[in-house]
């Protein structure tokens, strides 16, 4: 191997350390007792491994004045993410299908209008949305947040499916129409069976976005109905009592685990969504 090659591997290795060190620090800190944290260094291994911070984070950590741990908030996030992902993906698939295979005058303008919705800074809709949720009687509830995530997820879901369906030959649809198949038959029998990869990409993208959301969660939820990211922030930034860093780290890892696992097992699809979401076309 040449010197240049060695240098390349050393630099690559330094970056591996750069990206993994925070994860390493999180893991070991979450397994230490508070005394251990005060005595040892940030990077040193625990003298004795304890799972208490994890148990406490799940069962009895204080979020605001309630000390019941993260588990309720974890299920809140599941109850928000699952319906919101399903509905926005179904709508995205139907929209993409209409915009590519049943084109009508103005279809491109409709698509451009939807696409633009992906790019607005959400600050501009926060206040009217809060009023709208109140008007609909779902302010501070989980169905309210599902609605918010569906509405602002349609744009990306439509974008993914549209760009995918463009690559499916129109002849397929035309042939089916001649055979007498209708709108939904074609969608169900021809398009959907071909859509598995893009469904996976969309579901993963939407799930990651919705699970990781903080802005909508903190703006539109209240009391025990908050998503887990908001609960984590409340734990980390509570000003009362001793700062329990081991608890903070365990809680952060519980919040990060679902999307982390999705990334580890389906990273290929995650990256496709990431690059498709930014390089349009």
């Amino acid at each position, binding site marked *: 191997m040449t010197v240049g090659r060695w240098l390349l591997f050393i630099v690559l290795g330094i970056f591996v350390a750069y990206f993994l060190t925070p994860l390493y620090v999180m893991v070991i800190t979450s397994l230490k007792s508070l005394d251990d944290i005060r005595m040892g260094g940030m990077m040193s291994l625990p003298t004795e491994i304890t799972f208490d911070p994890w148990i406490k984070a799940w069962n009895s950590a204080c979020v605001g004045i309630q000390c019941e741990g993260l588990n309720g908030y974890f299920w809140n996030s599941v109850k928000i993410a699952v319906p919101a992902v399903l509905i926005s993906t179904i709508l995205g698939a139907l929209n993409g299908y*209409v915009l590519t295979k049943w084109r009508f005058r103005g279809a491109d303008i409709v698509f451009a209008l939807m696409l633009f919705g992906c790019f607005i800074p959400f600050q501009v809709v926060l206040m009217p949305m809060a009023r709208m949720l109140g008007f609909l009687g779902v302010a501070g509830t989980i169905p309210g947040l599902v609605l918010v995530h569906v509405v602002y997820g349609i744009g990306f879901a439509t974008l993914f499916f549209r760009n995918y369906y463009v690559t499916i030959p129109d002849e397929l649809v035309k042939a089916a129409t001649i055979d007498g198949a209708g709108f939904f038959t074609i969608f169900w029998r021809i398009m959907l069976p071909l859509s598995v990869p893009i469904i996976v990409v969309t579901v993963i993208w939407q799930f990651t976005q919705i699970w990781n959301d903080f802005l909508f969660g903190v703006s539109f939820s209240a009391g025990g109905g908050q998503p887990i990211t908001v609960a984590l922030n409340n734990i980390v930034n509570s000003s009362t009592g001793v700062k329990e860093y081991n608890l903070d780290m365990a809680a952060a890892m519980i919040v990060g685990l679902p999307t982390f696992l999705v990334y580890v097992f389906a990273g290929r699809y995650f990256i496709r969504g990431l690059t498709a979401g930014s390089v349009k076309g």
Partner: protein
Amino acid sequence: MLRWLQNNLPRIVLAPSLVAVAVFVYGFIIWTAYVSMTSSKLLPRYDFAGLLQYEKLWSMPRWYVALENLFVFSGLFIFFCMALGLLLAIMLDQRIRLEGALRTIYLYPMALSFVVTGTAWKWILNPGLGVEKMVRDLGFESFEFNWLVDPDMAIYTIVIAGVWQSSGFVMAMFLAGLRSIDSEIIKAAHMDGASLPRIYLGIIIPSMSPVFFSTFVVLGHLAIKSFDLIVVLTGGGPGYATDMPATFMYAMAFQRGRIGISAASATIMLMTVMAVVVPYLYSELRKKDND
């Protein structure tokens, strides 16, 4: 009737989404823009007060701090993300055997919530027990690293965490761009005796300008919207030293009860994003038509 239904079925299927976007995106934008021109304070009032709220906004020192932070943050964030991302992409492009594994490691922060990574960095950067203590324990007793609580330096901690989170994404974009370049051209340049750095600087990087442009747009967009990371890492503090437009808007709307000013700041954010995104979307949509 049935015939009409059948003929218009595609439009009927599209209608709910279109109505949702019309109301929840465009209707809401109009509402916010309108409220920014009223005299609303704690509750929205539907009168007309011209640019009153904008005048108030531009007379608030806190708004200037937020804007200055946005400039500092987005400048450094975009620069370092681009530099690191390009470096990583070029290195991974050298036929590395472990490329898949390395790519996975470089990109994983992108899958995590900013709330999660913010929590981690808050702990690493905390002056009492984090990096500062670690270096002191190594024997440098007078070492100081308290940026997190220093009003002048706290904004840079957000840059550190933001770059760590997002540079892997830039790498993925650039790597995809590098892979799409015609390898014949590179081979030809190689045959002509051009060195590797010259090939990259002279041929490859210039031909990736569309990728640079879209990466720039996405990063700029991320920077303007950054909210979670600031709330978790510094809470906008110390004081309001690390406020940015997104946190400013939120504080005015939901904590201070100053709806008019909040709407004015949100409108300015929207216009800033539009100035970047609209030409970009336009060129992307045009490009596809010409293909």
